[in-house]
């Protein structure tokens, strides 16, 4: 039996919660109208501590705690680390973007921190109840953050859209849980798998699965549940978009992986083809929608839909390789997307001065660093070799093809071709001569936090693109931790062929 103190299994969450509370307590101590940056730094420190804690959790033997509600294994720790990193960078971006703003910044940082707590719980929970709570925490905090610029016309609108539709989807998610519970009589993820085999009404579980899928598909903004994405991204402050386009998605994908692979592996006959369609739909909707976008943030919103599609491709593979690919892709996508939003939030500022693509004209001359970085991230999003984006796609599609989904791969890569069109349009805009009196003329100089954020994201994207070995190994470990069913797809005729040749 495991002897590790239970608290260690939720150490990062605890640390972050404490940090959040501290921020709340410290907030009133700072006089009105004074900058809230110290709180930001406090949050950064807390997140770093949580990150350290998460890394420490790699030492722990895999096991559950609190009566099997949480589980720390390679999988959960992988996503812990990822989410902590994302929040960390996003906090840095926030620090840079909101220097001027004082009002309510305490809450801002606290909400980011608490939201992170929710996501962390999502990834490590093996009890649907806890998953639900975590999901709600992260969602609610993001709803609020989305509407944080409440004096503007768009801020509250994006909040209300996100909130109403989000709760709408949550209801479905909940219904799904209810039905699953109805089919099995339990809400413990691992238990579901084998209780299903004895359940008198397994078919209810299928309905439950469908409903859960709906809820999570909404969270990861996969078509046809993507509708909210562009509007919300447009209305929210850029640092928040950086966060909500990556971290909650990563968490939601983690949950989806857990549920699909740990609770419903035997039903893959039902959900694999479904995800096939969701993936294709998402890719096409995302990329085609982005083609005509003039507004950068909306364009990236559509692109995030498309990327959700790429990620779902990995799910369809239904193999450990697939999970590894998905996890890896989540990392790469986080790196490049956070990075690009770092640039956007700095250039556009908290108030989004630059929205249209043309506003970015000549950025690469005004500020080679920002322009270059943005171009780099865009290329990574296209999936150019030696960037993380490329390896991400590469592993995803390798997994798909190994499982025999050649057409999926073809469609996917055609999509990356379509995507290249709009990403490249931005790149070329960055590198065309700026008009005189161009908006890019007045970019604030790069601050230390942003510099650090860019450093992290760029190096991450680059490392993932050149020497992805380590991260991939971790992703594999995570995959093996989750994916144990007997019905594992054997996708290695390759090795046999090689051996055959070797014999000759």
């Amino acid at each position, binding site marked *: 039996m495991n002897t590790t103190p239970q608290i260690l299994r939720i150490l990062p969450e605890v640390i972050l919660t404490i940090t959040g509370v501290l921020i709340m307590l410290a907030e009133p101590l700072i006089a009105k109208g004074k900058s809230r940056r110290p709180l930001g730094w406090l949050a950064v420190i807390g997140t770093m501590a949580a990150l350290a804690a998460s890394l420490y959790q790699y030492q722990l033997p895999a096991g559950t705690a609190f009566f099997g509600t949480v589980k720390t294994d390679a999988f959960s720790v992988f996503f812990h680390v990822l989410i902590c990193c994302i929040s960390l960078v996003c906090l840095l971006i926030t620090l840079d973007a909101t220097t001027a703003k004082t009002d309510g910044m305490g809450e801002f940082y606290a909400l980011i921190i608490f939201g992170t707590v929710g996501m962390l719980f999502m990834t490590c929970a093996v009890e649907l109840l806890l998953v639900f709570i975590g999901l709600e925490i992260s969602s609610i905090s993001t709803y609020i953050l989305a509407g944080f610029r409440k004096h503007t016309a768009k801020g509250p609108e994006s909040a209300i859209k996100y909130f109403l539709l989000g709760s709408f989807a949550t209801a479905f998610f909940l219904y799904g849980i209810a039905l699953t519970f109805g089919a099995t009589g339990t809400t413990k993820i691992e238990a579901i798998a084998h209780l299903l085999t004895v359940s008198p009404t397994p078919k209810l579980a299928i309905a439950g699965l469908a409903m859960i899928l709906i809820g999570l598909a909404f969270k990861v903004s996969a078509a046809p549940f993507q509708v909210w994405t562009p509007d919300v991204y447009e209305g929210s402050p850029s640092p928040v978009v950086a966060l909500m386009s990556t971290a909650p998605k990563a968490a939601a994908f983690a949950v989806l992986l857990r549920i699909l692979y740990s609770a419903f592996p035997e039903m893959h006959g039902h959900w694999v083809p479904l995800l096939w369609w969701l993936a294709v739909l998402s890719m096409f909707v995302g990329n085609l929608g982005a083609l005509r976008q003039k507004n950068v943030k909306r364009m990236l919103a559509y692109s995030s839909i498309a990327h959700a599609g790429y990620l779902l491709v990995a799910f369809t593979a239904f193999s450990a390789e697939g999970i590894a690919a998905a996890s890896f892709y989540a990392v790469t996508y986080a790196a490049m997307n956070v990075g690009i939003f770092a640039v956007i939030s700095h250039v556009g500022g908290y108030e989004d001065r630059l929205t249209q693509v043309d506003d970015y004209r000549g950025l690469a001359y005004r500020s*080679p660093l920002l322009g270059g970085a943005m171009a780099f991230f865009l290329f990574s999003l296209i999936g150019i*070799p030696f960037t993380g984006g*490329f390896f991400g796609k590469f592993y995803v599609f390798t997994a798909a093809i190994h499982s025999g989904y*050649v057409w999926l*791969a073809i469609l996917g890569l055609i999509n990356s071709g379509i995507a*290249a069109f709009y990403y490249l349009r931005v790149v*070329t805009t960055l590198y*065309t001569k700026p008009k005189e009196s161009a908006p890019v003329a007045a970019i604030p100089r790069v601050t230390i936090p942003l510099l650090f954020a860019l450093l992290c994201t760029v190096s991450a994207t680059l490392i993932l693109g050149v020497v992805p070995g380590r991260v991939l190994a971790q992703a594999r470990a995570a995959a093996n931790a989750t994916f144990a069913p007997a019905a594992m797809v054997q996708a290695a*005729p390759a090795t046999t062929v090689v051996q055959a040749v070797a014999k000759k």
Partner: protein
Amino acid sequence: MLTEHILTLMTFWPAVGAFVVALLPRNGRIVRWWALFVSVVTFLLTLHLPAHFVYGQKGFQFVENRAWITSPAIRYHLGVDGLSMWLVVLTGFLSVVGVLVSWKVIETRTKEFYFFFLLQQTAMIGIFVSLDIFLYYAYWELSLIPMAILIAMFGRERGPRTAVKFFLYTFIPSALFLVAILWLYAKTGTFEYPALKHILATNSGTIAPHALWWVALAFLVAFAVKVPVFPLHGWLSDAISDAPTAMAMVIAGKLGLYSIIRFNLGLFPVQAREFAPWMVALAVIGILYGASIALVQTDMKRLISFAMLSALSFCILGIFCFSLTGLDGAVYQTINEGVSGAALLALAGFLYERYGTYDMERYGGLAAKLPMLATLFVITGLSVVGLPLFNNFVGEFLVLSGSFHAHPGWILAATLGVILSAAYMLTMIQKVFYGPESKMVTQQAMGDMTVREHVLLWPLAVLMLAMGVFSPYWMRAIDQGVANLATPTTHTISYMEKR
């Protein structure tokens, strides 16, 4: 020591140079000189290959092979053979030429320019030397970036638009190309060229032939666009006319042609032979099509672009007749195209530097004003026309004579190209240099060639002549490189027996 790592060295040295450029101060002169230094060193490094190349030794040389990513099994596997060696050297050479050509033109944004320019060198050399298809693909895609950005930055008219067009034209097919690669990997479990070649050659039974056919097609299309082959050349003339000269020199031709020979003929000989009739037809159409459109151009760069289309189609023709002579010719012609095309573009560029237009109608009677430039222009023109004792003649002659036995009819048609080529080339020369002086020419007094231009053009001119006269020096390696790709032509053999 040097010989083990020479390939890595020459591949990454320009990249290193590029990053140094990024750190240099915003000062045109420093950046320029540095770039020149880098490219010269690159060229010298590439010269190491012919110096130490072992003739008659089978397989790849200067091999470097170590693990990169364990699973999927991607290796850092480099090596050259007779096929790729001279192309690498050519790349090195053209990088020097490129810097010299850009010397004056690129006045603003020099840092960006040379950064991407040097990056491009790395990508191109990487393409030629990598033997792991994954690695190859990585470089292949990478090579698009600097090109696209530079076109966008320095495009003559619709820069950004052309850049996107060029990028998509190449990127979308190579997406399918990637699928094909992954599929192969899924089936064979390796990315390494030699291993793949062996597997596909020995037990192709395990892989469905029709599937393999599609894979081969995906490869071919991706390459054909880059060459470009006739109906897929939509990007060419825009790209050539918008790209800065240094980039236009390397945008078309050698990468695609090399890849076709290396992969389509190397990995999929059977499928390649199935495609052959179509490719030959397209090639011949391309030759005549390009030449006759070039005949009616008024813009120098567009004329050159269509001339290129015509010239490159010769290579395709040679490749897909599978006779050793034809293949030799094709590869040789690839190199020639690199040299002559570069010279031609450089010359056009120099005229542009002087008079600020590529419109031939506005020129006239320059020969009296710029005799040296005119001379070199004529020399280059003659090389392009394929006059004997010039490089292109050797290439074209080998291609045509080597292919004749396979498709006499098509070759007959293709040979008409030599008439047309003479027609458009001489028309260009006449419009620009002969006849009475045009208004523009009389109004703007311009000096003849500068030292830089001499330094740049004479080596090219001499090279054209040398390659036309001492072809065996280059041919040895090439012949050895493609020997095993050709189907032995029967009639000559029988003739030999007859004697």
